[in-house]
């Protein structure tokens, strides 16, 4: 029940950070990471994972 950002693909645009309802996303060395303990795949908040919906890089965020 968590998603993962592929660091090598992340452009560091920070769009996902602001949209996460669980504050699970933070910056780390220019790219962003998801805290698996906090990520709920947006269940109970939205129909779809917000980070994937707003990320401009296709396939940058994946299920683990």
């Amino acid at each position: 029940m968590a998603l993962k950002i592929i660091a090598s693909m992340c452009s560091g645009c920070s769009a996902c950070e602001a949209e996460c309802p669980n504050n699970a996303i933070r910056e780390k060395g220019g790219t962003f990471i998801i805290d698996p303990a906090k990520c709920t795949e947006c269940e109970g908040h939205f129909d779809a994972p917000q980070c994937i919906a707003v990320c401009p890089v296709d396939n940058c965020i994946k299920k683990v």
Partner: protein
Amino acid sequence: MSHTAFISIGDLRRGRPALGDAAPAGAGGCSSSGGAGKSSCGSSAGPEDMPAEIWDKVKNHPCYSEEAHHHFARMHVAVAPACNIQCHYCNRKYDCSNESRPGVVSQKLTPEQAVKKVLAVASAIPQMTVLGIAGPGDSLANPKKTFETMRLLQQHAPDIKLCLSTNGLALPDWVDEIVKYNVDHVTITINMVDPAVGEKIYPWIFHDHRRITGLEAARILHERQMLGLEMLTARGVLTKINSVLIPGVNDEHLIEVNRAVKARGAFLHNIMPLISEPEHGTFYGLTGQRGPTAQELKAVQDACAGGANLMRHCRQCRADAVGMLGEDRSDEFTLEKIEDLAVVYDLDKRRAYQQQVELQRQAQHQAKVDALAEAFDAGLADDGLKVLVAVASESQGLVNQHFGHATEFQIYEVGAGAATFVGHRRVDLYCQGGYGEDEQLPSIVQALADCHAVLVAKIGACPRDELKAAGIEPVDRYAHEFIEKAALAWFADYRERIASGAVVHQPRGDARIRQGAFTGTAAA
């Protein structure tokens, strides 16, 4: 009382105000509100054709007043990296192309770092009057960072005007906040008013917690842009519309966009050429979508004349640009450098300096008006002939730059009785370190290929010959004259030479707009 203060980033975090509780209203200078609302500090759109309160807002804004941009400076702070839409001309690895030049990545700042930077720049460059938040993403997709920066700045430097740039999607939600922070100007990038055109520019938007694609995405974006613009107009906030001219996609359509935004109260319309070099990695860059030529851009701008006022002096500045338009001093104010700076923000000193600048500008404007009156008196019959001339100018509206030192040329269209500014052409520096770089000349010739003459303060023998060979007349006999006067005098002479048979008038072709990152500084 003194408005001097020393401020550190720590102070900003603790919320210590720099100026006590005395927060006087915006800087004065030119007395436009007095008397009959007239003032002698004109611009091409001066107080004669503009209500006094609007003139007051634009007179020292380098982006809103063509004349002000020779005197006042602006800066952008890159506090807003996130974006809520995708544009085909953007690769966010390299900043937003609607306000930033791709190819140069901005240094992202926190609001506290941004304000420290603004204060450092404002103390070093007293003619810096405007702070803009223009990305690198969308300022309103980063509302916390954007408005926190503005809040801090109002507290510490109340004389600096605030503006922001947005794609408009989130705009209707933030109009109250924009008004609350006294934002003077908002720039909205609007590339279409028909969703069928929009669909070719925007692959998706993120709205209402959903990613939306296709026609629906463009329709929502269009509706939100129009609503936001109307709301700003109703609240008295000045708006500038940026449009990216994409040949074959929205070129004709921009005339309709111009009409639509004017009807909704837009103050200024800035039509910019698409930047689509493949190395920027944008969708358009990779699919071979080309940018417009100089004449294509001019044709669309000319077709919009009579609609919303057009801005012709845009330089497509990067999201962390610092200084006068057309120069970039951001290297002097990197985070590392400003961390060590002791900032002295002296409001009184800044005011005094800006008043000085305003006086200078009034004097200069008057001198220009006088010079022009004389030139017009020469009285030529209008036979409809119009040609473009390029001008090398460093400052003050004068023909006062050496050809080899120019990183950009100002382009004027001259005909009987009128010399009108139509834009800038950026070129590679011809003369580096005092000697001519011969391989640069062809790129300059390409950029000026639609011009009949180049007016310069001085020019070397070699570039002179090459320009002549390309059919462009190098002219240095009007050195240090006002540009319009020089252009009209050259034109009168040119017509005489046509009449006497000394030259045969030949129409010129098209010119190339220089793409890619800006590397030059204003004064070489």
